[in-house]
């Protein structure tokens, strides 16, 4: 076969193939087939997730008597949340504790996570080992982490106090979870112990995305490693900082299991560790006869707050990134 003929043949074959690719490959199957593929997931997700979420808004406007929905009461449930004792005292206090939780986690967990990501970025012996170890507690149930640390911090038989006494720091040994001053910080630390691998991995992925040529250029210009980090890497990590901040915020305002394990359903001692998640649970399932209406109203407020602040944060970070470009 002459070469030119072979070439035209190949070209037409290729063209036909591309035509097919456009014609057949991208054409969607019939609506019936699409429905068969999509509907199972769509129904399950809609019925058990989206529909109940949407209903929360509607239910918050009704009076409940046990499980039965009664009359439309407008915003009365919302007013009750802030006027009825003891909710009117517990709610602002729990909210404040969530704010502390968020600030404490940002300062300790996420700063350390960034530090470890940076230290482990350079090729070094044991990189995988350290990353694996630091991420390990993430797997453990929040409840188990809470119980584990409440045993560790036990005033009588806890290893922490025993170790402090052994090295002569008897003055520091205290009932960590029994003292209102140290109870919440202890829980924040235990929570950070569990989650630190998460920001570390996200920051590590972010650092790996920064081009090596940028670092090289900075080094040639005589930047120290601190300057390199502060002026090149950190600004470029800003999108990841944004993601970590928003996810930390959402996580911390939903915190539940670890606080239950370390402070009980009432956030002991004396409400010093009470958080919104516990207040919400108590309102819904340990409340009075009209509990479901009140809990729906609280759900709407928490949803609006968490969603609103998250969106605001996303917008702020985007603006910040723009201004740095």
């Amino acid at each position, binding site marked *: 076969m002459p070469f030119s003929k072979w070439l035209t043949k190949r070209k037409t074959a290729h063209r036909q193939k591309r035509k097919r690719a456009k014609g057949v490959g991208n054409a969607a199957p019939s609506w019936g087939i*699409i429905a068969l593929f*999509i509907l199972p997931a769509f129904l*399950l997700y809609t019925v058990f997730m989206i529909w109940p979420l949407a209903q*929360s808004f509607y239910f918050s406007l009704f009076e409940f008597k046990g499980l039965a929905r009664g009359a439309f009461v407008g915003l009365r449930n919302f007013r009750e949340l802030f006027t009825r004792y003891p909710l009117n005292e517990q709610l602002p206090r729990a909210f404040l504790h969530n704010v502390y939780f968020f600030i404490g986690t940002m300062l300790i967990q996420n700063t350390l996570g960034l530090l470890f990501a940076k230290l482990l970025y350079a090729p070094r012996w044991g990189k995988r080992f350290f990353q694996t170890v630091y991420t390990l*507690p993430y*797997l453990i149930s929040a409840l188990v982490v809470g119980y584990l*640390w409440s*045993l560790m911090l036990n005033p009588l038989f806890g290893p922490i106090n025993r170790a402090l006494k052994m090295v002569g720091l008897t003055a520091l040994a205290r009932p960590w979870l029994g003292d209102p001053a140290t109870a919440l910080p202890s829980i924040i630390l235990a929570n950070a112990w569990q989650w630190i691998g998460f920001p570390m991995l996200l920051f590590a992925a972010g650092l790996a995305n920064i081009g090596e040529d940028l670092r090289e250029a900075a080094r040639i210009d005589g930047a120290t490693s601190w300057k390199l980090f502060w002026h090149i890497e950190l600004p470029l990590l800003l999108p990841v900082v944004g993601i970590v901040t928003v996810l930390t915020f959402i996580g911390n305002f939903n915190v539940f299991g670890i606080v239950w394990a370390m402070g009980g359903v009432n956030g002991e001692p004396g409400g010093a560790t009470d958080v919104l998640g516990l207040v919400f649970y108590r309102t819904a399932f340990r409340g009075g006869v009209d509990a479901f209406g009140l809990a729906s109203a609280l759900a709407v407020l928490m949803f609006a707050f968490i*969603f609103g602040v998250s969106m605001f944060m996303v917008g702020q970070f985007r603006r910040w990134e723009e201004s740095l470009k």
Partner: protein
Amino acid sequence: MNARKVSRPKRLNLAALGTQVLLWGYAAVVLGPLLLVVNNALRPTREIFKNPIGLATSPTFASFVKAWEKANFHVYFFNSLGITVAAVVLATAVSALAGYILGRYRFRGSIFLSAYFLAGLMLPFRLAIVPLFLLLNDLGLVDSRLGLILVYAATGIPFSVFILSSFFRQLPQELSEAARIDGAGEFTIFGRIMLPLVRPALATVVVFQFVPLWNDFFFPLVLLRSTDKWTLPVGMTRFFGEFQTDWSTLFAGLIITTLPLIVIFLLATKQIIAGLTAGIGK
């Protein structure tokens, strides 16, 4: 001038030393408590109270037997296992179907559907518990393992559809064409050709659903009443009240609850890290 030249490598060494101290120090902070749990589960409570940080000199598994049999862990364990596995299988199956169509084809409403599924990743789902409780109550699914499985499967869908559709999207077009010319239908193409090719993504999705469901405390706390249906986390709350003074058994209980996750972690470290960093990186 000379002095600076000499001091520089020294400072570098100090920094390297500091890094090592930090890394190993924090590794000890993580591993210390975990090793202590194992150590204390292997020795009697009497010894733990005498010396909280002493070594288990003559290890015994008595506490594990006690937690498993007397503290009802054999019931909780298999409830957790059954519910978690069923929910993960269900969610992965329906998500693979939906993810396939959303990843491979554009049709009217496909972009909206993708966004609709994605939205679930950001919604604080626990806040919907009141309507969900009423819905399950109407369906006769309160205090039912099936009810919990359906709820759990629903929570797994957003992440799974997101990951799987992006993997299906990357597969070459030629594969499905060839099969279609041979007369294969959409389901055959999906099951025989496409699904086997996204196995790594399926692994990520399975592992990533398994961990939070196994660990979840809130939904079984609210939705399950009878103790013979309880999962490990809810069982744990009763266990910690009942065995308050029996620390050795408490430690053993913590280990039993966590063991399956440790096994998964050792088998699938890569998938876990891939899931945690999904959306970031190359």
